[in-house]
């Protein structure tokens, strides 16, 4: 797929991407390698996967990472209840322990978790491994193995080879340094906060109810807000929330009623320290600049 087509198609799903991101995605398709997308929270890393799923008309399998995530939760688990039941049922039959063992370790007793599921589909799904930096190093090493060979070995059953190779997207907020090996296995893209024009296009596409004038003010305000010294900078998702909130309360401009407007800042500023940082006079200055 040419990246220009891809960019147009992404836009068709409502995902406005820069050409370099479209190029990166096109390359992962071409080279059949996973892509690691890094960037601040709320720049639209996860949405890339959703948009790609829609374009490819396939399924999205999402694996949300957290500390302590292990192979049981991500690859497969034996269905213990069914196994116990089967053992009870066969109690009367004259089978050796080995034969019983063979019986209960078959595919029908297997519960597929996201990774195994992703490689055993006929039509290659999009596999989104979200916030890989939250998982620990052991899991990362394990994942690397899966992503290199696209096969998983189950001690009781043997090796399961991939039916199709999924489109793999990993995201990271860099809360932890990832291993070099995993980084090298993946193509890489750094997703920055969108430019003013791009963000305006996003707001227009996702919140079409917002009038052009209001949308422009919202975007300019958020862009200026990101330049302030904040603990958690508002992402694109926050801009969209704010736009929807303003449309909801029927605001036509952001400088109509400054007190009320300051209340709506909770859509953008999520910590107490940040809310204190944007004092009324700072807020007024930012609004004046955005209008």
């Amino acid at each position, binding site marked *: 797929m*040419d*990246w220009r087509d891809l960019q147009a198609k992404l836009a068709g799903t409502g995902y406005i991407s820069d*050409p*370099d991101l479209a*190029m*990166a995605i096109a*390359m992962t398709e*071409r*080279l059949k*390698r996973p*892509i*690691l997308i*890094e960037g601040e929270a709320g720049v639209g890393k996860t949405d890339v996967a959703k948009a790609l799923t829609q374009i490819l008309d396939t399924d999205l399998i999402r694996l949300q990472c957290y*500390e302590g995530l292990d192979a049981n939760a991500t690859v497969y688990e*034996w269905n*213990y209840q069914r*196994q*116990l039941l089967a*053992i*009870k049922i066969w*109690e009367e039959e004259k089978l050796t*322990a080995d034969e*019983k*063992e063979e019986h*209960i370790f078959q595919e029908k007793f297997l519960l597929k978790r996201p990774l195994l599921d992703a490689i055993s589909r006929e039509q290659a799904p999009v596999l989104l491994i979200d916030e890989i930096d939250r998982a*620990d190093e052991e899991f990362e090493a394990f994942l690397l193995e899966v992503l290199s060979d696209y096969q998983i070995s189950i001690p009781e059953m043997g090796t399961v080879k991939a039916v199709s190779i999924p489109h793999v997207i990993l995201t990271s907020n*860099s*809360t*932890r*340094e990832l291993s*070099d090996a995993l*980084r*090298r296995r*993946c*193509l*890489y*893209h*750094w997703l920055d906060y969108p430019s003013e024009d791009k963000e305006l296009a996003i707001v227009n596409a996702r919140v079409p109810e917002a009038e052009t004038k209001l949308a422009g003010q919202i975007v300019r305000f958020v862009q200026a807000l990101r330049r302030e010294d904040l*603990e958690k900078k508002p992402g694109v998702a926050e801009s969209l929330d704010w736009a929807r909130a303003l449309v909801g309360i029927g605001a036509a401009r952001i400088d109509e009623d400054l007190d009320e407007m300051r209340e709506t800042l909770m859509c953008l500023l999520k910590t107490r320290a940040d809310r204190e940082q944007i004092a009324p006079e700072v807020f007024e200055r930012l609004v004046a600049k955005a209008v």
Partner: protein
Amino acid sequence: MSGEDDIGGAEDRVVALASHGIQHDASPLVLKILRFARHARDNGFPMGIDEALDALEFADQSDLLDRQSLRWGLRTLFCSSPDDWERFDDLFDSYWSYGGERTILKVSGSLPRPGGEGTIPTADQLGFGNELAEADETTGGATARERLEGTDFRHLDSERDLQAVHDLAERLARRMRWRLSRRRRVRARGRTIDLRNTIHKSLRHGGTPLELAYRRRHPRPLKLVVILDASGSMNLYSTFFIRFIRGIIESFAQSDAFVFHTRLVHLSSALREKDIERAVERMAVMSAGWGGGTRIGESLKTFNRHHAKSTINSRTVVMIVSDGYDTGPPEVLAAQVKKLRGRAKRLVWLNPMIGWKGYQPVAQGMTAALPHVDLFAPAHNLESLAKLAPYLERL
């Protein structure tokens, strides 16, 4: 490993590529991309033959290859971290626009480079070398090693002594690590039942789980983050601690180091340098241009805001090495230390001055920070550092 492959010798490569099943007539563009790949690797990009091959495949399949697409494509292929990402454009432009293959200095670009490009000042010029005062000749009957372990770092002078201290520090750091990871075996007793193995074992009892299998939790080794004060008042100790921190970074898979005087600088990459002299030099480059009073509170604020998220988790022990002489307001320091304590598992404050006779922590900053510190310990000689190991082991 592919990273060890040599990308060099573009012509050889094309032959190699043919054997990889990719046909190339070695067009000028292909050769240029190959040379660029090698150039990128010389500049510290994590490149191997795989990346070079992918680059060629990319060039092959892109029919419309303008400069911009080439940039984006190669960037996605060659970069693997935000650092790489930031440096890539300069590298690309310098190569493709000017045909130059000048090596961009690997010391992070935004830092001051005294003496202009290319001339890295030596450690001595920047005051890192022979600053340890007052020779201490009393060896007595003790062996040289015992003498070193008990000697205040201020009193070490000769190059040989320094080398010995360095070796000891590294050995000590390794010992600490060994003790920490030994816990895995000793405490390998779990509380939860492992269903898979229990079922396996139950088969011979007709499915009745008579023998229970337990799942063992593997306690993972701690992570250490060291924040070193390199202010004037700590000067006599810096040379030593740089070496100690280096020992830690080399021995702990997960560790990080920062140094501050008036501002905070991330040290780890400089310290991972194989050659110790070069590491000290790089550190000197990074610290050059510092002046004015020590701002511990402000530096910790920077750390909390920009680095804590990515370096600290619930298994991290933070070690601050400082004498606590802060020129900023003590409330700031107290608030930041408290915040840091909240994120980490333990906060250890090492103060070389505790070893001095009659020392009381009267420095305002020190008293403000003390309530939030888990362990306040001396660190003026190797013996005092060695005493830390058992403490860390118990965590």
